């Protein structure tokens, strides 16, 4: 399995997303780097809107990830309730 990765700006909005990722993706590896947080995961990484919403205390729209996104690797699948990265190999 190849690794997908997601790099987010090290800012307040990212905190909740990272918490949600950790909760829903046991295999994800989170790394702090200068000014950014890097998440890698074998095969697939899911950001669930419901989980993030719980961490931010309001309805969180997966498109809000645009505000803190730096880079990614993998195919993207998004809908109202999730933002997913995956490889098919």
């Amino acid at each position, binding site marked *: 399995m*190849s690794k997908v990765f997601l790099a987010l700006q090290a800012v307040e909005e990212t905190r909740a997303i990272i918490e949600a990722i950790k909760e829903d993706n046991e295999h994800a590896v989170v790394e702090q780097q200068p*000014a950014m947080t890097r998440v890698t995961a074998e095969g697939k990484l899911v950001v669930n809107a419901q989980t993030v919403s719980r961490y931010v205390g309001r309805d969180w729209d997966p498109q*809000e990830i645009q505000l803190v996104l730096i*880079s990614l690797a993998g195919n993207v699948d*998004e809908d109202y309730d999730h933002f997913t990265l995956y490889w098919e*190999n």
Partner: protein
Amino acid sequence: MTMGTKTRKKRLSMKDKYKYMTRLGWETTYQDMDDVFPEDTFEGIKIHDWEAWEDPFRMTMDAYWKYQGEKDKKLYAIIDAFAQNNGQKNITDARYVSALKLFLTGVSPLEYQAHRGFAHVARQFRGDGPRVACQMQAIDELRHVQTQIHTLSHYNKYFNGFSEWSHWHDRVWYLSVPKSFFDDARSAGPFEFMIAIGFSFEYVLTNLLFVPFMSGAAYNGDMATVTFGFSAQSDEARHMTLGLQAIKFMLEQDPDNVPVVQKWIDKWTWRGYKVLGLVAMMMDYMLPESPQSWKEAWELYFEENTVALFKDLERYGIKIPDCAGTVSAEKEHLSHQIWMTFYTHNAAAPFHTWLPDEKKMDWLSEKYPNTFDKYYRPVYEQWAKLEKEGKRYYSEMLPQLCQTCQIPMLYTDCENEDPMQVVHKMTTFNGERFHFCSDHCKNIFEEEPEKYVQSWLPVHQIFQGNCGGATLPDVLKWYKVEPGVDNFDYVGSQDEKMWKEWKGEA
């Protein structure tokens, strides 16, 4: 989210909603479709079903305005704060600013080219899906060039080497390298443009361009650049996804597309890599504090990440570009050879170079244990000797350039373990001889010789008398490079003097 009061109202999936919001085109009948979309067939790419296009991100214009507006408000607040607080004083050293000069003169104009290029393909494809995705990238790229200008505008007020970036990009010798790279993509057909910029540049190579610049900025106390960089990167993530979607779409539509796409991937990975030579030099030499060497970045972002990507494309019959071996063989030499060249020809380049100090050379020895002490430290020691004698070395010569990548013919035969011997490849076309730095550049030329004979090679243009005159002062005047202000060594420069005054060292 507000739900309608009526329960029988259907809830649309994001995918369906986006489809309704973007599938707006029609088969024209008063004009022939081939006249309306005259450019999307001649390259030989076969598309049977434009509707098979999968939208990479599903952002409607209202959401786009909303999120981008929010991002820009944050970004400009930081740019303003940086200027108000004279943030430029907080960088590690004024040498760092040369990296920004390189960025504004060499990279920002490419963002503009990308803006116009994506607007062009967004008009030319007959499928609605790719047209929408491409136009969002077109406007994003306008954002990038403008936020870069606005961020670096503050540096321009204090440092030399920024003020004529637009004039320089069209004229100065080394800037013909990035310019011709983008002109090449822009003058190709729309599908090749997508592979060149959307896929090879944005997907395969963008992390090697932006992440090193931005982490370099973070390491060297340049908050304004970090901010525009990261803010732009969030758009890049969308662009990368578009690039990947574009290539998959082309490969899935017809098996005949595969060899054409492979040829373009090979070509454009190499073309992009050659431009990134500037980034290699920036990372290893221009950053007073280096977070990462060029070699490490290449290994992380190309050798590791790209492997996953090409594994994903394997099922279509796509292979890792054949230049990967050459690039890998050169990775311990590239940045040093480029820096040497700029050091030598710094009289004609509007940013500063300098000899690496002991601390930097030790770092380079550590990062390049196989090459630095053996080959490159002795070069700098030789030049340091000359500097001590008051004879800082500037070449009075003009280098031979590669017809394709337009870089001075400085590349050596690392692949055949002859790393101090320059590679010389040549071919003839229409009764004239043409010279190349590598087989890759030669092959690109031989595929389309009529295109590459047109290269506006700065050295030849000077000799033809098209650049203001025959002497260096004539040419500099034509460049609008102010001698002793924009060019020459950092040591003794106005930038250095000002910096020392700021630091109370003058």
